[in-house]
């Protein structure tokens, strides 16, 4: 009797946290929507400097896209392991996810560094400002998510599975999937459309 009450209480707590976290993700969505449309409105204001076509390397972007997409897939497999109460298996999948996330970050930082080295900074035109802000904000989210992931993996390995750890991983996986969703739109509207 008490056990069933406990189960239902845990289920309610998980659903509440999940909904609360979705609320946060939706607010983040509004921020990205604003940054997106700012970019779209300013993308032709290149002030004699480079255009989006000039700075886009499509195979490079496609690689980043596949890295992030695969990391979303491995997040799913890690989440399944969490639901199955297999902490070591979950830690393995999430570590792979983290590695992919870091690979994405390395590629993005390298791209930014190359641009800056050539003098194409965010200061030279409205387009470059909007570009760096949009892509940079997404990258910052990936970086913070990676940090969060690293911490959670360590906590899982040290403290083991609990309902609380499950809820944390559920929130993290929503966050990580959301980052890939945002990237779909960056990939399509910034890079693909930009290369038309």
């Amino acid at each position: 009797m008490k056990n069933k009450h406990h189960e239902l209480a845990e289920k309610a707590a998980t659903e509440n946290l999940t909904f609360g976290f979705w609320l946060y993700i939706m607010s983040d969505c509004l921020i990205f929507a604003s940054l997106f449309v700012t970019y779209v409105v300013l993308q032709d204001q290149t002030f004699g400097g480079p255009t989006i076509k000039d700075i886009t390397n499509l195979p490079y972007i496609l690689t980043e896209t596949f890295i992030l997409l695969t990391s979303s897939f491995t997040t799913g497999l890690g989440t399944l392991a969490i639901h199955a109460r297999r902490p070591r298996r979950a830690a393995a999948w999430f570590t792979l996810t983290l590695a992919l996330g870091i690979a994405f970050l390395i590629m993005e930082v390298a791209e930014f560094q190359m641009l800056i080295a050539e003098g194409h900074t965010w200061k030279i035109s409205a387009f470059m400002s909007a570009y760096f802000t949009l892509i940079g904000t997404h990258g910052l989210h990936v970086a913070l998510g990676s940090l969060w992931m690293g911490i959670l993996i360590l906590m899982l390995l040290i403290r083991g599975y609990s309902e609380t750890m499950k809820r944390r991983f559920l929130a993290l996986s929503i966050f990580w999937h959301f980052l890939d969703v945002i990237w779909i739109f960056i990939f399509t509207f910034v890079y693909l459309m930009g290369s038309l």
Partner: protein
Amino acid sequence: MEHTLHTNTEPTTHGSVRTYTLGFILSIVATVIPYIALTHHLVSSEIFIFIAVGAAVVQLFVQLVLFLHLSFKKHSLLNSILVAYTGVMVLTIVIGTLWVMHNLNKNMEAQHNVYMEQLYSPRSQEY
């Protein structure tokens, strides 16, 4: 003691290897199609825009349903309503901004002043 509810392995609440793999493959397809169409110049610009936007929307829904498990089932209904509402807000922000900026640019174009144009027309420069 009766085995309790906690070994809930229902695919509907949190997916399965099959649904995640399906989502992964569909997302790859939705990524590759517009990429190939663009890099191999398979279609005109207008059609490409249609394909790219379509593929992005398809991939969005694939990931929302298969990765994020949004559905209209009781446990997910409120989340889905929230996402749909945010979608409306996003459309408002995006469409509203594009419309306003378009009008702004249109109104700030060079003004055609008939009097001034007559003053500065080639004929008026004759001595």
